[in-house]
């Protein structure tokens, strides 16, 4: 049996805190972006707005939970932020794109 350190290093504790924040806040950003992107774009395929919102929000909660799992699977805390914030940024851009497009034209 390996002997444990008598106290865990602060770098480890910081990593746990960073991942927890990435999971809760980054995951929330990802979930928001999923629901926003689907709510904006599903109506293009003929979905009524409220239907798009419900479908997007149902999926968003699943993404949230899976994002939390992924944050604690990542080897490094930075990976946890990347795995949530990068797709969140992409999806947020997708959700906001029609507005930008409209203002440019």
């Amino acid at each position, binding site marked *: 049996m390996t002997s*444990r350190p*008598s106290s865990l290093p602060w770098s*480890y504790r910081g990593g746990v805190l960073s991942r927890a924040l990435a999971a809760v806040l980054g995951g929330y950003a990802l979930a*928001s972006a999923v629901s*926003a992107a689907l709510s904006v774009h599903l109506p293009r395929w003929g979905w009524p707005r409220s*239907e798009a919102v419900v479908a997007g*929000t149902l999926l968003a909660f699943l993404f949230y939970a899976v994002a*939390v799992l992924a944050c604690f*699977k990542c080897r*490094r805390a930075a990976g946890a932020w990347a795995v949530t914030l990068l797709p969140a940024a992409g999806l947020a851009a997708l959700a906001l794109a029609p507005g930008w497009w409209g203002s440019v034209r």
Partner: protein
Amino acid sequence: MRPDGRAEGWRQAMAWLHTWSGLVLGWLLLAIFVTGSLAFFRHEINAWMRPELVQAGPSSAATLALAERRLRELAPDAPQWSIRLPDGREPGVQLAWREPAPGGGRPRFETRAMDPATGRLLDPRHTMGGDFFYRFHFELRSAEKSRWIVEGRWVVGLATLAMFVALLSGIVTHRRIFSDFFTFRPGKAGARSWLDAHNVTGVLVLPFYLLITFSGLMMFHTLYLPAGIAAAYGAGGKGYFEELSGQKPGSVQRQRGTTARPPGPMPALALPAILGQARAHWPAGRVERLTIEREQDGKVWVDVAAHEGDRVQYRAPSLRFEGVSGQFVQARDVDAPMARTYGVLYGLHMARFAGPGLRWALFGFGMLGSAMIATGLMLWVVKRRAEAGRRGAPPPGAGQRVVEAFNLAAIAGLPLAVAAYLLANRLLPVAWPDRADWEIRAFFLTWLACLFAASLRRDAWAWRLGFGVAALLWTAIPVVNAASTPSLSLWATASSGHWGIAAVDLSAIAAAAVFAACAWRVRTPARASYQASPAAPLGKPRVAAVAARGGA
């Protein structure tokens, strides 16, 4: 999450996450599960806690006219009336009306109970009844008119997310779900039997846990996750509710929360004719509620809602009529597929559709979930003890003592607090000022006292005492009930066929037996491996023990 930062597989990573996501808000989750299970019976608990309503007679064809006449006396010029007809689970007609608050504040709702047979107003004791458990379950309600409702909903939402994460990571961790199902070794010493109990309770009704957790998040999606609504409807989300409930936007102007009072009194209404049309529309269904709304221009709309228990999907369909002429305006129901999916998830969580058999089954599932959480919390402590015992480690650190104290206060203390709430309903004088809030204070003060006691001692003796006192209090419930309100004694309710009310007393006896058994079992050899911790106060500085470590 290995402290040395080396790579690990999904199972190891998820085992760590399962442990900590379950522990961090585990005690709150236990309280949410227990109160949610009680909320399946909130109408029955309401009836038990308002003994003055048991004298209400049966409803008849004249009941609606009686209710209308009574509302004309109570609130002739209110902008909104609501009449809830009795349904067998809770006696009495509920009359409600909205008073526009002076100065533009939020409008107030007033409610009264009426005897359906005579139209006489009933005067039940002031209590939140079973609705307290219902409201605590999703918003941590701490007083009849609490100011912290939104904050409470957010905390419950965070706990629900933690539950969802713990369930999913638990599934990854316990891959052998099918074989775990058949593995229970109650005689085995130490962590093994706690782990088996945790696995069995976790696996047995796993789909129920997933459903109740996911739907719980979804039910408050407009609060928790408004991004989609904001993206599609703009920041205020204006129009979303209308479209979600199947109305065409702008088809009917609703003046929700208006502060102005429409001029004059409520005009004469064609309520019996409207009810007749609604009954013809739903020949096999029941009518739950009539909502009468008067607008600024004098128009009156009557919405007749079908009974929520008549189908799984929530909300029930409704019919709109013109109030004065009684003319049918439109039927409202949700038929879009996603909105119906949401409605079914919502309805499964609320379980209004469940008859007595299914309701008891769902309550049992909720109790299994509570046992799953409780055994998980115990497992955290027992595993660490076993490990420390093997290594001859120093006594438990502050972190472990805090967990032990919270475990004791949550597992043995919460049932004690629930019993105190029910007993306060009978023991507080009927005319006591603020008595509804004092009942709730009895709940929280008892719980707090348990936490204080648990901070002093957490050994086997303390557990036995906690369960023993819980058994005594639950035994006292039917006794105090019979002594203080003879009309509601178990004997009286069972012989008059009020089984919903009798079930509260019978359940109290069953709960007392369970807690007595728990108190007895604490000292048997099977639990001897749960070693008594030295009675160290929480504040004692720890020596060298590690409270937070990697690995499950």
